[in-house]
């Protein structure tokens, strides 16, 4: 078969393509996906704007700029906060913080959880027992305490030459404590797949362990990582809220968590619009991620394919 002939040979229909095709047909999931993309575009825009020094937000958010606590009106859609800053602006800006935290924390979780899970599941024995012991212990500690502990310890330390401040504290602490669920998931799947005949076949023609893990097992569990990612993202956004609420979050710039934190005092004064704005923003990203994540699971899981 010549190279030219090979080029003409039609590409097959991988399970990914199949899954994507089915996903695209689901209108609700696609609408949700659109909304999620909007959030990301917003965050991206803010990053770019800041990089080019375009004025999207005041340099100092704690500067008094206008009337305090103006309720929502035709002038200011979401009202103003204690410094007279536009709540709408703060909400939009908060998207950057939340998404950055969630994305980075996801990254860290995947980086730790997937390899550990794969190694534990494949090699079993002592290695497995150690890893399982580690994550069982970690997950037995109440989540919030754990995150708080990490956040307090990591604050103002340096890691690989970078100073850990504010936002980094947040996502590092979340990421370093949240990999357990993914690790368990991957470990379970790897144990299942390890006994499948195609893995046996690979061993029978001399595949090394490394090759089996990377070439055969991991591609068959990647879809789980993606599904888990989309669902866990929501949890990370909420975790950021909790950290800010506890005063461990990003200090100088507005985030949804900080807005809700401020609302604690504000509500007693009848100022509800900051909390409402933040809650609405969190609600929609969580809802759309959940719906989209469910649709992803339905479409990507080979077992759920209707033959």
């Amino acid at each position, binding site marked *: 078969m010549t190279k030219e002939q*090979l080029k003409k040979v039609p590409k097959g229909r991988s*399970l990914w393509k199949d899954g994507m095709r089915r996903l695209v047909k689901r209108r609700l999931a696609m609408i949700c996906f659109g909304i999620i993309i909007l959030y990301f575009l917003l965050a991206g825009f803010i990053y770019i704007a800041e990089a080019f020094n375009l004025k999207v937000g005041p340099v100092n958010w704690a500067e008094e700029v206008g009337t305090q606590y103006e309720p929502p009106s035709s002038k200011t859609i979401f009202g103003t906060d204690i410094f007279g800053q536009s709540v709408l602006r703060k909400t939009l800006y908060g998207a950057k913080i939340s998404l950055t935290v969630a994305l980075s924390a996801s990254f860290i979780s995947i980086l730790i959880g997937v390899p550990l899970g794969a190694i534990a599941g494949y090699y079993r024995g002592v290695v497995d027992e150690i890893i399982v012991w580690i994550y069982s212990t970690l997950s037995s500690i109440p989540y919030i305490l754990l995150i708080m502990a990490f956040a307090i310890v990591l604050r103002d330390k340096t890691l690989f030459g970078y100073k850990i401040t504010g936002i980094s504290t947040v996502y590092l602490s979340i990421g370093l404590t949240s990999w357990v669920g993914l690790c368990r998931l991957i470990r379970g799947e790897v144990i299942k797949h390890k006994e499948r005949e195609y893995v046996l076949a690979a061993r029978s*023609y001399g595949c090394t362990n490394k090759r089996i893990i990377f070439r*055969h097992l991991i591609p*068959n569990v990647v879809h789980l990582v993606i599904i888990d990612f989309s669902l866990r993202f929501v949890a990370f956004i909420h975790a950021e809220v909790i950290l800010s609420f506890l005063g461990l979050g990003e200090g100088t710039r507005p985030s949804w968590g900080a807005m809700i934190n401020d609302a604690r005092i504000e509500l007693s004064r009848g100022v509800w619009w900051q909390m409402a704005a933040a809650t609405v923003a969190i609600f929609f990203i969580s809802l759309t991620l959940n719906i989209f994540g469910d649709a992803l699971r339905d479409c990507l899981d080979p077992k759920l394919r209707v033959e």
Partner: protein
Amino acid sequence: MANTNGHLLKVDNLKTYFPIRKGLLRRTVGHVKAVDDISFAIRKGQSLGLVGESGCGKTTAARSIIRLVPVTSGNVVFDGIDVLSAEKEQLYAVRRDISIIFQDPFGSLNPRMTIGNIIGEPIKIHKKTKGQELTEQVAELLTKVGLSPDHINRYPHEFSGGQRQRIGVARALALRPKLVICDEPVSALDVSIQSQILNLLKELQEEFSLTYLFIAHDLAVVEFFCDIVAVMYLGKIVEQANSQQLYRNPLHPYTKALMSAIPQIDTTLRGKRTAFGGEVPSAINPPSGCPFHPRCPLAQSKCSRQMPTLEQVSGSDGHLIACWFCEKKIFSD
């Protein structure tokens, strides 16, 4: 180099026991005696069939030979190489010369790889071939098994069961092996496809001078396919003979009962059904002595005390049987 007497594969006293661990300290409380002391040999170009019902150990035996499961004791000599104590390099060579075709056409192919990659991977690993040359070799293999090379970029789920099994055959042939182990290759296929695959395997045997170790539970398939047949029961070989002999003249009570239990279409072949009570006992606690004695119509007290040895029936050509009391008469024709 071990003396193999002209046999390509010689298995002696193979035992594969799986430990059962219980309790906090994971102590071994017993063993599943999956393969319990079997011996056989295959010459180059022959097909030997291992037949038996589920749990008899035939699949475990096949996997033990290439060390896909840990072997407890015994000797496996392949092409002069002692497989069970081979070092990495030698084992690598063995893995190149023995290949295996699996039963499940759906589970034996990685669903995330194209069939081109699936078939080509063994070649890539052993011969370090890549690119154009690899594609050509894969295309040739596809043609040999009756599939179109145009399908080289397709994924397993785009094929039917029979076609997937052909892909499995192509993969098994990729390195031009000397011995091919067929682990129930047609059991999971539709009836109208089974004969296609069996014919294909036979043709390939002639073309590539292959030697087969054929594992199945369907006696008719094994009779057609194999030169020599060994019947297994609960980890042991109870009877072994060349194919024609075994079917015309089964001696062991288990073999006889097995044959009579097969539903026959041809009314002339339906013999009187041998009353066959009970079920196959578990391999964890096999009966003492001859494993078949609790269900055997000929059983006597000696059978529960002593396991009969596999011995040649006098006057026969390689007809072996492990039974104390059955009639050992060979009909020659």
